[in-house]
């Protein structure tokens, strides 16, 4: 009998220990493109962080830290940068990561990403004198080499094998082979249903503590499954409550009250910097081709009503006078008085003084994107109160995305305002913030044209000292408010909802699954 009990106990213990640890995640959206360089979609970026590694990371304090790079040097004239890769880096196919792989990856990224393109305007050449070293030679000093290489959001300069990175930049890659902490199981990928990643047993994490996208990327689960089919907000909550999934990446704001009542669930503010809402004007067509009208609109668009209507939970949102994320090095209130110290009466006066002729303002309202769908209604109401004539047009988000790319007049299928949200790293500096540009038709949708703004951004790119960069960022922001590139509409966080047995969340922007433990 004793022998039998011992056998049973052994079997139970072995069964428990031998069981695979599977982290079941409900991501914020569907994964439909697997090339994080070809698209800026956040889901592709998150897929990238599972599969690939980066040369540098950005920690929770927004500081760039080495990741695949072991050490680096920069010449006295700041034109030659030399980097040495860490030992033990290998791709999932077993081949070592070399300088040639890095150069091919950076070249492809530099053709797609806006910051990468900017960096490449400074780059004279790149080479790899030996397998573990790569060098970047600049034509003239530039102040954002490390920020670019450690860029935490789309497009992230992920390192791929040379044979993959040699894919033309306008074509999608065919393989998902990286050197990151997880291996993508292509054979288990079912579009719209499930994406599976398994632990990369050969991954060598850094010794530093994990922080943001920097530090040691330790993997404590055997497998991460992204449930791509579970997209109904209430069903997500039900599934989490029943323990059928472990993590909800972006619960609907309306779900938090219910989530707080579930005993085995807790909320985790993994990304305290969060997101910023933005109202973007079309500078090509009346009435917003007139800077005075844009200023009147910014004055009318106070942040609190947007945040209250859209987020609704006081502890999850904050006003932020900066166009760069508040709480990051370039966050400041410089030049924001037009919005932060304004009120409806002033907006009405500004509009009257602007010579606005009653041209209707076409606002694009997405009806299927819970995270932003209430913003256009608030914008419409505030602008009406200020004296604008508003035409609020409802459509699905993908129609908004298509329509905002049109430069036609609003009456012919164009637009005047659309509203969106950005993750912090996308807007925290003048080179990543797509909305702060003045290159006319080459700018991001809305196409502001302002030579002074472009000149300041160019100076920022060349500045190499932190104090000088900060001063320039302030001047850029002040100019952006002056010409009214867009209206920042406040910031918010969207905490994860997780089962209580899932711990180890790394603080920092983005959705990453290293260091996460499931007990």
């Amino acid at each position: 009998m004793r022998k039998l009990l011992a056998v049973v106990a052994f079997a139970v213990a072995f069964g428990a220990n031998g069981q695979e640890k599977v982290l079941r995640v409900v991501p914020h959206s569907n994964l439909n493109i697997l090339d994080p360089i070809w698209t800026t979609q956040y889901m592709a970026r998150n897929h990238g962080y599972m599969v690939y590694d980066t040369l540098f990371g950005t920690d929770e304090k927004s500081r760039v830290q080495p990741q695949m790079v072991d050490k680096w040097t920069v010449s006295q004239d700041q034109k030659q940068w030399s980097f040495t890769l860490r030992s033990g880096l290998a791709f999932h196919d077993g081949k070592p990561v070399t300088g040639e792989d890095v150069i091919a990856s950076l070249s492809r990224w530099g053709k797609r990403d806006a910051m990468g393109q900017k960096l490449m305007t400074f780059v004279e050449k790149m080479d790899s004198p030996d397998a573990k070293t790569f060098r970047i030679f600049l034509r003239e000093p530039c102040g954002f080499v490390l920020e670019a290489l450690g860029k935490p959001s789309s497009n992230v300069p992920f390192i791929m094998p040379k044979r993959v990175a040699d894919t033309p930049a306008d074509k999608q890659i065919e393989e998902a082979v990286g050197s990151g902490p997880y291996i993508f199981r292509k054979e288990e990928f079912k579009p719209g249903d499930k994406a599976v990643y398994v632990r990369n047993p050969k991954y060598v994490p850094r010794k530093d503590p994990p922080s943001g996208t920097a530090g040691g990327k330790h993997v404590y689960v055997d497998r991460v499954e992204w449930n791509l089919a579970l997209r109904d907000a209430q069903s997500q909550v039900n599934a989490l409550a029943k323990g059928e999934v472990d993590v909800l990446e972006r619960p609907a704001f309306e779900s938090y009250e219910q989530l707080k009542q579930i005993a085995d669930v807790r909320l985790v503010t993994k990304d305290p910097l969060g997101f910023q809402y933005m109202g973007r004007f079309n500078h090509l067509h009346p009435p917003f081709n007139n800077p005075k009208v844009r200023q009147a609109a910014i004055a009318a668009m106070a942040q609190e009503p947007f945040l209250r209507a859209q987020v609704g939970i006081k502890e999850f949102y904050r006003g932020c006078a900066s166009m760069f994320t508040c709480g990051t090095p370039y966050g400041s209130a410089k030049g924001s008085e037009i919005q932060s110290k304004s009120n409806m009466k002033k907006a009405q006066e500004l509009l009257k003084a602007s010579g606005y002729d009653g041209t209707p303002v076409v606002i694009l309202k997405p009806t299927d994107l819970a995270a932003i769908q209430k913003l256009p209604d608030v914008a419409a109401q505030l602008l009406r109160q200020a004296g604008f004539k508003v035409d609020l047009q409802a459509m699905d988000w993908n129609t908004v995305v298509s329509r905002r790319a049109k430069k036609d007049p609003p009456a012919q299928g164009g637009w005047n305002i659309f509203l969106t949200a950005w993750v912090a790293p996308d807007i925290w500096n003048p080179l990543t913030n797509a909305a702060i540009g003045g290159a006319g038709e080459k700018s991001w949708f809305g196409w502001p044209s302002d030579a002074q703004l472009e000149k300041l951004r160019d100076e920022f790119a060349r500045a190499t000292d932190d104090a000088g960069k900060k001063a320039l960022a302030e001047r850029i922001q002040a100019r952006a408010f002056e010409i009214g590139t867009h209206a920042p509409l406040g910031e918010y966080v969207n905490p994860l909802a997780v089962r209580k047995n899932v711990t180890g969340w790394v603080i920092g922007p983005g959705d990453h699954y290293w260091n996460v433990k499931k007990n």
Partner: protein
Amino acid sequence: MLATIPVLLIVAVLVFLLLRLTPGDPAAIMAGDAATAEQIERIRAGLGLDRPIVVQFGIWLAKVLSGDLGESFYYRIKVTTLIGQRLEPTFALASLTILIAVVVSIPLGVLAAWRFGGWLDRALMGFSVMGFSVPVFVLAYLLIWLVSLKLGWLPVQGYVRISGGFFLFLKHLILPAITLSVIYIALIARVTRASVLEALGEDYIRTARAKGLPEVRVLVRHALANAAVPIATVIGIGIAILIGGVVVTESVYAIPGLGRLTVDAVLARDFPTIQGVILFFSFVYVAVNMLIDLSYVFLDPRIRY
């Protein structure tokens, strides 16, 4: 069978043109939020969307005629493969739904007709009205709350393929099938009731009863058999509608079926997938209709083609 070809051709042309006329640019969607106009233009050219519509249609039609429904813009896999992946969940859900609906509704309908005006008949009519009136998602949430969250009997969501074990497969499918079957139970039961009621008024029923046949036999062999044609019609239409119309149920229960694929493709403007799936649905509609027509011959020997 030959009549299928012009129907499918008309559907193909209409779907193709409608997609090109509706707003929404797949290139802009694929490029992501921070993409520039230049990047979007390059993607558009890569997808062949910068060519004239006639050329695009010609290329697509030539592929379809050779049995190739094209490749998804997003997943870059064959649309036929995508449909293949999604067919099992939808087919399984539709089959189980219809099975439950038929097993429950036909006896109910016959009983209601038999006890016309009685409490059973009134209860059935009341249930029918409720079945038609309660939205599927409301019923789904109520059932999930009761059966999955409170009683803990069944999973909240998800789908397990039949290859993953029949018990698990059934465990995940039973609740969505019950949810979806309610409206079909209501529909088929009403049609059965009306048809059987009509048959019960016929002379041959009176004759059967006068001969002393047991009431069950009168109801099943005489009344129901003669009422079978409209019932088969409504069941057939139900199957056809189910194949393409289960999107709400699939969404609430996270079942990766054809309905969800269609909605995702429409929202993402994945033209090849939408075109392929709708052609497939059209084919299913035509095939099911044909099968219904053929079934009439067996159900009513008087019908000849």
